[in-house]
């Protein structure tokens, strides 16, 4: 923990904050977690759940790598292989990358803007439970031996009842529909939270970049998710009620699915990556001891990415035959979107330039993101060119590209965030030595896995194909990828071990162990359940780096209130309502039109009970509920 001694002058080392720990005044026990509406607990649940799904998706990936270790192997059947890569992609995107970012939204954003909770605490819990149930439903398909096998993009007619008559695609289309409900509600909640619950003085252009990127991501969620929701609903009608949306023989158009999917799918890429950008935009300044270089430019670049992200979807469809005019347009927009992304890269480098850099694990992962995301970005610009893309489409080159973006960009950013905010969440540090092992095994394992895929792709190895011929000369590359995959597996185990040790016996951390600038570091670690005894007033972008402002804030945020602020009561309606929503969708599977109405009736019942529950009701001595 040599880092703590390096804390800058501005760190409140002499304040009593180091002895102050919140979080001991909360009820414990399983029931208190099931009924919680506290954004911090919900954030922790999001994180742990996404970690479990990361393990599941990771095991799926390793089985894929074992199957591809040598040519013409049959470790798994072709059908099982289809299920493995479909579930690997679907899991990693919808059950790991998105919810892990949401875990950070939940825990960090209210603290960064000086709020006591999100705008709609019970709806927040509802989002979590729907995510959990949707994830369980999707993975329950394995128990039926019918995991989705249509790839994460689910192109028609691979999902049609004619070519895919089993339960596989049913699980996929309904599972994703359930998860979509959760994401839209999350988006509404965080937009409202960020607009409404900023502490006095926290103007938009004073918000930490992580909050800004959450804001942009939330807008993408509420706008992009309805598009995929409609696509999935149309597909569900095709499968369960014999409609003709994507059935070419009846006048339907399979290409419409591709459009709808990618109109959602490309904003989705930015839904995934912007939170990671946000994390490192907070981490890099902290460990460079410099304010973020060009703050407004980073904000505008993020917003611009959010906008242009809507105009590039057809670059996923250059081989679908849209014609030269459409292709040219999307070539141009795709190249344009590289500009704001590149701007951010330079902003991070300029922030580090001339700074007093502390190379700890959080910073290492952040720098790793800058380097590896750039590699993924560059290969992205390569297949932004339609003629080049025609060669690379559906090859392992594309697999290499998006893993550099998703693992090298998003996962590294998430890891950086975990090491950075762990002391805030638990009041303890993660072990830096284990952190170094985690970082270097991730870096080596990651590059060993995915860099050779550029070559195997160029040699012509197609993706989503369960084996390959010896004559393709890609065996060496595949073996390297498999070795790398297992190193990545080991690195994840180190990470989990570190988390476990950190929670159990990590060194204690004070309220602001890194000497960071933003508001979440002004309160005790872990925070009280009400976060802020009273609302602080913010005067600048780096409130804790200005001595006078820090003192004026900490007088408020570290105070022990005589009367604790009133927080909403726990509620069990979120988990019941989530069960109702999940059941409604799952019952569509029966194919009988009225059966889902049973689930819908239960959902309606829970909705009414929810609506007439007073979150601030006080329980009197006789158990009688009185208001206010």
């Amino acid at each position: 923990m040599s880092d703590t001694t390096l804390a800058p002058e501005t760190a409140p080392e002499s304040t009593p904050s180091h002895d102050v720990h919140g979080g001991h005044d909360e009820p414990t026990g399983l029931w208190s977690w099931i009924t919680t509406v506290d954004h911090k607990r919900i954030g922790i649940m999001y994180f742990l759940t996404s970690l479990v799904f990361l393990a599941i998706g990771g095991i799926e990936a390793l089985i894929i790598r074992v199957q591809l270790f040598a040519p013409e192997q049959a470790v798994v059947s072709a059908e099982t292989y289809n299920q493995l890569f479909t579930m690997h992609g679907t899991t990693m995107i919808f059950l790991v990358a998105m919810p892990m970012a949401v875990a950070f939204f939940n825990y960090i954003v209210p603290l960064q803007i000086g709020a006591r909770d999100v705008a709609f605490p019970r709806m927040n819990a509802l989002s979590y439970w729907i995510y959990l149930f949707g994830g369980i439903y999707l993975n329950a398909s394995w128990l039926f031996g019918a995991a989705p096998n249509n790839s994460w993009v689910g192109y028609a007619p691979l999902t049609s009842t004619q070519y895919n008559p089993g339960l596989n695609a049913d699980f996929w289309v309904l599972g994703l529909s359930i998860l979509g409900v959760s994401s839209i509600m999350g988006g509404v909640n965080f937009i409202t939270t960020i607009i409404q619950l900023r502490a006095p003085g926290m103007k938009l252009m004073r918000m930490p970049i992580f909050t800004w990127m959450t804001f942009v991501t939330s807008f993408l969620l509420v706008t992009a998710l309805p598009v995929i929701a409609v696509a999935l609903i149309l597909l569900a009608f095709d499968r369960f009620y014999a409609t003709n949306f994507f059935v070419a023989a009846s006048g339907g158009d399979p290409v419409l699915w591709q459009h709808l999917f990618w109109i959602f799918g490309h904003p989705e890429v930015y839904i995934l990556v912007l939170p990671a950008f946000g994390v490192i935009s907070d981490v890099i300044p902290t460990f460079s001891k410099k304010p973020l270089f060009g703050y407004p430019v980073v904000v505008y670049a993020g917003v611009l990415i959010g906008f242009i992200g809507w105009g590039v979807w057809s670059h996923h469809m250059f081989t679908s035959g849209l014609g030269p005019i459409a292709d040219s347009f999307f070539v141009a927009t795709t190249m344009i979107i590289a500009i704001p992304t590149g701007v951010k890269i330079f902003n991070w480098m300029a922030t580090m330039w001339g700074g007093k850099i502390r190379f700890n694990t959080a910073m290492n992962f952040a720098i790793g993101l800058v380097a590896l995301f750039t590699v993924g970005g560059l290969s992205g610009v390569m297949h932004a060119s339609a003629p080049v893309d025609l060669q690379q489409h559906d090859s392992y080159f594309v697999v290499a590209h998006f893993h550099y973006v998703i693992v090298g960009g998003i996962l590294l950013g998430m890891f950086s965030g975990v090491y950075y905010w762990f002391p805030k969440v638990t009041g303890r540090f993660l072990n830096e030595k284990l952190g170094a092992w985690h970082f270097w095994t991730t870096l080596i394992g990651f590059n060993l896995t995915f860099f050779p895929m550029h070559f195997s792709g160029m040699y012509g190895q197609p993706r989503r194909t369960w084996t390959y011929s010896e004559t393709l000369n890609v065996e060496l590359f595949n073996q390297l990828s498999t070795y790398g995959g297992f190193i990545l597996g080991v690195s994840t185990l180190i990470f989990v071990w570190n988390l476990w040790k950190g929670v159990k016996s990590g060194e204690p951390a004070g309220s602001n162990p890194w000497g960071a600038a933003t508001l979440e570091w002004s309160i005790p670690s872990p925070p009280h359940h009400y976060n802020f005894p009273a609302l602080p007033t913010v005067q600048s972008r780096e409130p804790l780096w200005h001595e006078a402002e820090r003192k004026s804030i900490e007088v408020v945020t570290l105070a022990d209130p005589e009367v604790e602020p009133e927080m909403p009561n726990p509620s069990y309606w979120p988990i019941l309502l989530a069960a109702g929503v999940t059941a409604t969708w799952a019952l569509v599977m029966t194919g009988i039109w009225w059966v889902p109405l049973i689930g819908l009736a239960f959902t309606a019942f829970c909705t009414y009970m929810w609506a007439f529950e007073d979150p601030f009701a006080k329980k009197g001595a006789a158990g009688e509920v009185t208001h206010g």
Partner: protein
Amino acid sequence: MAEAVLDPGSGQAGGHDASHDEHHYTATGLSNWKVGFWTFIGSECLFFGTLLSTYMVYKGASLEGPYPSDIFDIPLTTLSTFVLLMSSLAMVLGLDGVQKGDRKKASFWLGVVVVFGAIFLGFQYYEFNHFVHEGLTLDHSVFGSTFYVLTGFHGAHVTVGVIWLSTLLIQSLRGKLTPDKALQVEIAGLYWHFVDIVWIVIFVLVYLIP
């Protein structure tokens, strides 16, 4: 979203002590429910936008009849559209009644909204029934699929609105819809007007443009 707005805790300051008012602090001074609901409506725009786009993309793609021109009864649908539009007017008057604490006015006009919404749904039921008899079923053709799913989802939204407003109507009749609860009615109104506007777009694009 209905549940969110009916939430008694979301009501305005009535009966709350001073510490309770901190729950209502917002940076903009607007209510959370209003901002959240507008965000939700934005999301709904994309939802119906995608359904409408699908309908437009598939216009004329059906391989066999009945085609739209064979079965649409424009005068009839114009009438049901008029009823739905008038319900929006009633919604405005109902909200005014709640805001002014005029229980009779509020209950009367909220009742009109509910009845007009139900009449619209009745028209839709009749229309669907009639079309099915003409041979246009959900799985018959691309026109059938796109038409029923688009208008069906709109009808489902109207149904939710009717149930929501019925609940408010009962509250009003029991005298519980005091002026400090006007926000709940206002947000139900936002939803209702939105559903109306969507219908106007559907009416123009699906029925009126040949």
